[in-house]
């Protein structure tokens, strides 16, 4: 089963974990066959929000939620069950600075 581990960090903690450590973590996951994809994100002020309402495109800057922690990256993993996924998420280095949201992937229904 696939889980998306979303990494949330406060703005000033974006570089609290060295990139080297995150790369090593991703490599470790990949070698164990757990990792499907992982990326880090640019800071929140580079974000653009896109909506389509009544066929009309609207583009605004930044995020819409006033939260302290922002999405800083993600790991898409393969795990047996939630307990397994929690164990993997606990090994993601930013877990000790921010938080990791573990979300099960929903298979789209073609019908």
């Amino acid at each position, binding site marked *: 089963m696939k889980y998306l581990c979303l990494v949330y960090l406060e703005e000033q903690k974006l570089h609290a974990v060295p990139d080297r450590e995150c790369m090593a973590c991703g490599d470790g996951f990949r070698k164990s066959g757990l990792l499907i994809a992982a990326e880090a994100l640019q800071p929140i002020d580079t974000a653009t929000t896109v909506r389509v309402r009544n066929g009309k495109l609207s583009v605004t800057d930044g995020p819409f939620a006033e939260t302290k922690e922002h999405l800083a990256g993600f790991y898409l993993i393969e795990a047996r069950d*939630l*307990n397994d996924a*929690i164990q993997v998420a606990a090994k993601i280095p930013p877990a000790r600075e921010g938080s990791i949201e*573990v979300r*099960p992937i929903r298979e789209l229904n073609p019908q």
Partner: protein
Amino acid sequence: MTATDPVHETVNAVYFSDSRRVLATLIRLLGDFDAAEEALHDAFRAALEQWPRDGVPANPRAWLVSTGRFKAIDGMRRRARFDALDDVGDKADIAVVDPAAWADEESVEDDRLRLIFTCCHPAMSPDAQVALTLREVCGLTTEEIAQAFLTPAPTLAQRIVRAKAKIRDARIPYEVPARAELAERLDAVLRVIYLVFNEGYAASSGSLLTRHDLSAEAIRLERLLVALLPEPEAIGLLALMLLQDSRRAARTSPSGDVILLDDQDRSLWDRNQIAEGIKLVEQALSLRPALSERKRVERRFGPYTIQAAIAALHAEAPSAAATDWAEIVGLYDVLARADPSPVIELNRAVAVAMRDGPAAGLALVDAILEREDLLDYRLAHAARADLCRRLGKTADARASYERALALTRQAPERRFLERRLAELT
């Protein structure tokens, strides 16, 4: 068929004693809570039809599991034919095991533990954990749980539906946690059980009878947990609940007013519960925790066990004055190290007041309040008021009683504080 029919009575008795065990095993075999519940009901319906005709089977529980599983798979196959899905048939076959194994005591008891740990999984909210545990492990109806928690039944039903959906969709596994995680996960289970107990024990509103049942249910559940997993902290919590519950009859007057520990008629305390509680405390204190040795080094005795030891000292004392307050203060010191919190500090301050006099206690309470830790905690102000009253500081006592009253919503406690306030002159 009448209620006096012996076979009908047997079915009822088996339902009462074994339906939760059968459910726990069916969840494992079918991998789904809702399917298992349906199968459980189908199995008992079949028992009502077949047992009067064919006789009661030698092992009713194994019969029920086997029948429930068969009916569920049959239903899945029938639906699969409608939906033309091939994989459902495969899914139904995964659990083909020797029927004798279903009756095997060990695997059945493991299923009960699996069910408890799944219902108390930390990925669900505490509210959901409590509701699901009472529904699935204890077999209370949604209406009973709603009534006990003063929650509208539809809200509670929704909470349970969402929790089951989370177990399914996030794939929370049906398992007893691995040894490395067991200590932490057991803490979560104990927290749920103590929460249920306190809902019933602090019966402040709603139907008293129903809420008392919650305490009894928590004790029953804790007994089961101790039988399955005799960890020191689990034994400690059982002891704590028995010792607290032993004072039930003395805690309130016939008119429902609060009676403080000092003023309780100790002849009303349940001596059998006290004897069992004390025996369990001693057992918990003498056992070496098997779980996660490294983690338990710094907290050798868990907070429930220490609180149970404190409750045992109260239970053994013939009166408030003759209580071993020095020992109680010492235990609060241990507790404050194991599980530091301002509430424990407050309790320690009250014990110090009993040992060294109200002035010593007041100094400690004021120190806590000065740190602004318990400013909104009604019992901190009530304790301060009581200490001031005993020291003859009437104005201070009045201010603190009024502050406590402003923070208290429970009617019996309000009446108690109002009485104390009126007695100040």
